[in-house]
């Protein structure tokens, strides 16, 4: 079951008006989204927004009440499960099972041959510095190590679509970086990755496209860079010596706020950052930092959610 080669940007997964209800409670409400090959798709939102329910429908644990989920143009179903890799939010491993056997078992469940699964498990354990833990029982491992084992179980069968729910939870920065590297490798190989988290800072780190959901509904989606551009404010982070004269120009600068490391300069309407930079250089100020301020996803999310 080798993954089918796919052109970057090709739609791997399409959710069309997907709805899921539990009794009277609507967990996911008419959700549309498209996940593309060779890109990391951020499924974002606060706890309880409906992320996990959405993912469970994608991996075919539950089925939508309404709407359709298409994987490479086919309706999601049992036949397609082998082509997905799913890392659930909470670690799901057999505590008393040895690490090596656990991975072989989970690999076989994804349709790998026994030998093939063993080889893949060994290679990945080596790569993630867990080789010497192979014969140990899973509950002897630290939480971070278990998370890495779970990660291996998710990707060892080379899935076309990888779904990671809070993958960095409990990992130290070094291991988080290691996993990020591997995720980007898979992205480079043209796989699609769904990255779900409630920590929006993490998403900025990794995602190409995002979908923000809140209370079962999509709030915002699109390419992360585009979204940021659309929400950009006319402000600059500035650190400079001898800039006071320029900043006093009321036609150019609306106001200046002092931040920890820099000044936040909000420009007048119609004035551009280029104009400010040119004036600063002309005036002989020594500029050590000049950066157009982009709103964080957190700010965007809060402003979208608090919209009337």
């Amino acid at each position: 079951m080798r993954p089918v080669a796919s052109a970057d940007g090709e739609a791997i997964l399409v959710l069309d008006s997907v709805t899921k209800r539990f009794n009277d409670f609507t967990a996911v409400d008419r959700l549309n989204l498209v996940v593309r090959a060779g890109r990391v798709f951020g499924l974002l939102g606060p706890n309880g927004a409906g992320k996990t329910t959405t993912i469970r429908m994608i991996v075919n644990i539950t089925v939508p009440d309404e709407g359709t989920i298409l994987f490479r143009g086919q309706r999601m179903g049992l036949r397609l499960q082998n082509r997905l890799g799913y890392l659930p939010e909470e670690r799901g491993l057999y505590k008393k099972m040895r690490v090596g056997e656990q991975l072989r078992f989970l690999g076989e469940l994804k349709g790998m041959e026994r030998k093939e699964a063993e080889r893949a498990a060994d290679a990945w354990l080596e790569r993630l510095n867990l080789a010497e833990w192979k014969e140990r029982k899973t509950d002897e491992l630290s939480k971070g190590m278990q998370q890495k084992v779970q990660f291996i179980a998710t990707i060892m069968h080379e899935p076309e679509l990888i779904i990671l729910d809070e993958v960095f939870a409990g990992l130290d920065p070094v291991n988080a970086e290691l996993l990020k590297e591997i995720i980007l490798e898979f992205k480079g190989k043209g796989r699609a990755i769904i990255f779900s988290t409630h920590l929006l800072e993490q998403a900025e780190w990794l995602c190409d496209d995002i979908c923000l959901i809140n209370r079962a509904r999509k709030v915002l989606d699109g390419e992360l860079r585009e979204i940021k551009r659309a929400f950009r404010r006319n402000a600059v982070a500035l650190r400079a010596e001898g800039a006071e004269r320029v900043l006093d120009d009321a036609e150019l600068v609306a106001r200046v706020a002092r931040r920890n490391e820099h000044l936040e300069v909000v420009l007048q309407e119609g004035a551009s950052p280029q104009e400010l930079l040119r004036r600063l250089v002309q005036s002989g100020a020594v500029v050590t930092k000049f950066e157009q301020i982009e709103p964080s996803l957190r700010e965007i999310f809060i402003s979208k959610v608090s919209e009337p």
Partner: protein
Amino acid sequence: MSKIWIIARREYFERVRNKMFIIMTLIGPALLVLSGLLPALLFRLDAGGAKRIRIFDETGRLYERVRDALESDRKGDGREAHARESIGRYDVSPVGGKGRSLEDVRRELAESVRRGEIDFYVILPRDVIAGARAEVYGRNPSDLFTVDDIEAAINDAVIEARMREAQIDPSRIASLSERVRLNVVRVSEQGEEKISGAGFFVAFIVGFLIYMTIILHGQAVLSSVVEEKNSRVIEVLLSSARAFDLMMGKLVGISLVALTQYAVWGVAAVLFWIYGLAALAASGINLALPSISPLVLLYFLCFFLVGFFIYATLYALAGAATTTTQEGGQLAMPVIFLLVIGFYLVFPVMRSPNSTFATVISLVPFFTPVIMPVRLVTEAPPVWETLLSLALSVVTAIGLVWIAARVYRVGILMYGKRATIPEIWRWIRQP
């Protein structure tokens, strides 16, 4: 299909390599025998020394016989084994009552019982041979064994005295009242065969094995399901395989574990049969081998498997609907109840194995695995009935696995609370 196999293999090897399983398999038969014998042994165990008994014999003719009976192992028919154990258990002495009133004797003996000098005293009134009651007094009359032994000893002595009065030789009576023994022969399609009750015995063992297996391994099914839910492995599993395959694989794996255990025990039993029986025969004890046709044994295996599947699935269902093993255990109580009912139904079925009643209940899937083996070794039912009951059970088992799989799949969405029956029903009907 292949995923069922992968899951069954994991379940099997994880369990078979478990230390507890290995230990239980090795010492299991010993424990089983011990648990069977222990209550009897404990009951017979007498912590004290010999019982001191004083006997006041007004007739003057019975004392010696009673003493001999209590102190030696010479006893009447069928009581040898019992008596052999009582050697040295009784210390009997007479009460000289010459010239004293019965009341005085009584008072004196009661006093020595109170002081702890003796344990029991016995009054044999003058007209006891004519039918009056003998009297036994003691600090602890609930020591049934002693009272029993005293009664038997007096009984033998009195009967013998009556016979002598009637001029009958007691040894002649013994030979004249020898019991008749029966040869019981079963007539069936296969011809005639002598039965020794071993068939019942085997059927009972099959029923008992199903019962034991369900108690031991059914619980394992339940806790395994609960563990997968609690550790969230189930999310990974359900994103890789059908819930039905997961359930089926689990049950196949665990039933193979049970069969492995019985295979080990079976080999031990066969070895015992071959070597142990010869040794027993050499020391004068002959055990009859139950004669059962291979076909019936095959049926036994089928009923055993299907029975285990039905009940284990009910356990799985209980596990899938709850979040802790304890709650699951409570929910599984009716399962045991169902099984016990089946077990009690064995007795009326044994008496008339081909009655309408027996036929009907042996077709009820929950009772089939226990009842059908009994019918097979008693009065063989028609083949179509055997096969029909087997088919009904298989269908029931598969249906139950299907239902349990549904509940299992929906149950993961539920944290920390037990599902109500209507909820479970809704899950089953959900697509």
